């Protein structure tokens, strides 16, 4: 019946349009992108200063500190994922858009990862040097961070969607997300530690990859449902 009318653009154009708009917004307000990155860099550089320059100690805590800092900086940036859209009413417009909501939510999450997760992965080698991380371990760390931040952005989008209507929902968001984010942190930090100790680490990488794929396939639907609930 409705086939007579022009077809709605495919889901990839919806995904791309949302991601593009958010990237454009991030480009116009670079502060929002740089804040979490700055936080990540700051935490990572302050630890060696506070703990002291003992190489063994730094080598030992390095993976853990980098990973905790990455997790916290992602949590910090998640709060704003839907907040701007909620405040100016564009979230309502997304809810009545002819495009499927999970796709639009995924587009927003993709933009979030590109502006928060990916920069973090890219600067991590510089920070790893502070912890005397061997050059052979750095690619492993980057790979785990890459897969881990994808999971964190996706899982975090569920929490961000649930808390978008609440004022000052940051603490609640962190509480909601932490149980889901814990496996990512444990797998990530331990995999890097294993690689640094010349142990077999590939299992951890596969597990992180599996976690990222599971998040990718489930989180957009949960986020869409959460957005509908919190906007009733």
């Amino acid at each position, binding site marked *: *019946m*409705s086939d*007579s*009318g*022009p*077809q*709605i*653009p495919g889901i990839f*154009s*919806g995904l*791309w*349009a*949302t991601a*593009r*708009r958010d990237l*454009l*917004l991030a480009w*116009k*307000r670079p502060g929002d992108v740089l804040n979490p990155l700055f936080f990540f860099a700051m935490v990572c550089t302050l630890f060696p200063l506070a703990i002291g320059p003992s190489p063994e100690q730094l080598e030992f805590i390095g993976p853990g500190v980098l990973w905790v800092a990455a997790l916290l900086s992602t949590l910090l940036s998640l709060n704003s994922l839907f907040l*701007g859209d909620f*405040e*100016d*009413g*564009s*979230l*309502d*417009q997304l*809810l*009545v*858009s*002819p*495009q*499927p909501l999970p796709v*639009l939510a995924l587009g927003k999450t993709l933009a979030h990862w590109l502006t928060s997760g990916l920069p973090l992965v890219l600067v991590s080698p510089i920070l790893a040097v502070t912890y005397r991380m061997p050059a052979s371990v750095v690619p492993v760390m980057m790979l785990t961070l890459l897969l881990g931040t994808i999971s964190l952005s996706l899982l975090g989008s569920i929490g961000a969607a649930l808390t978008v209507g609440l004022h000052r929902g940051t603490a609640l968001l962190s509480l909601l997300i932490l149980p889901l984010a814990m496996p990512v942190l444990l797998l990530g930090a331990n995999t890097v530690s294993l690689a640094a100790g010349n142990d077999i680490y590939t299992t951890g990488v596969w597990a992180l990859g599996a976690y990222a794929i599971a998040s990718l396939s489930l989180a957009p639907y949960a986020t869409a449902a959460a957005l*509908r609930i919190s*906007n*009733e």
Partner: protein
Amino acid sequence: MTAKLSADDLTLIRGERCLFEGLGFALNSGELLLLEGRNGCGKTSLMRAIAGMLSLETGQVLWNDVPVLKQRQTFHGELVWLAHRTGLKGDLNMVENLHFEESLRPQSGRDREAVYARLGIERLKRLPLRSLSAGQQRRVALARMLLADVPLWLLDEPFTNLDREGRKLVMELAEEHLAAGGLCVMAAHQDVDINGPVTKIQMQ
């Protein structure tokens, strides 16, 4: 193409308050539904319910005799909602904002420049929306509505922030939309002077 928006026995309870109960209407192509009532009486809630964004206690909204919740995407493809908050990004300019909205919908084939000129916003293309006045931003939201070129308009207080000419323009646009076989649901607390078949719902 004719379309039909109807609702039957809608009840919405918010907290302790019953906003409306047993509310029903039927709207055909070319008809206007006018929601009247004082502030806070549930006009916006009813509009959100029509758009399928609220879960109702009882009743359902039907689009072409099919419940909207069963065909959310089709229905959303045929409506445009001019809400109280414009839903436009202050950091982006008009063209960027409208381009985003257009890329989510089918190509309407409307002449953009003509729409801009009609709304008097053709000179504002490259300015970030933040720097425009509230009335100008509302005109951009009207441009989005016109460019979508869909049968059902949901207009929530469309006259807010508009000057006298702007209000007249909105009424003209609504009249043209109705004449072309469109449907329009409008919530307003001002006098609305629109030629055409009007159904009024006075909300308590």
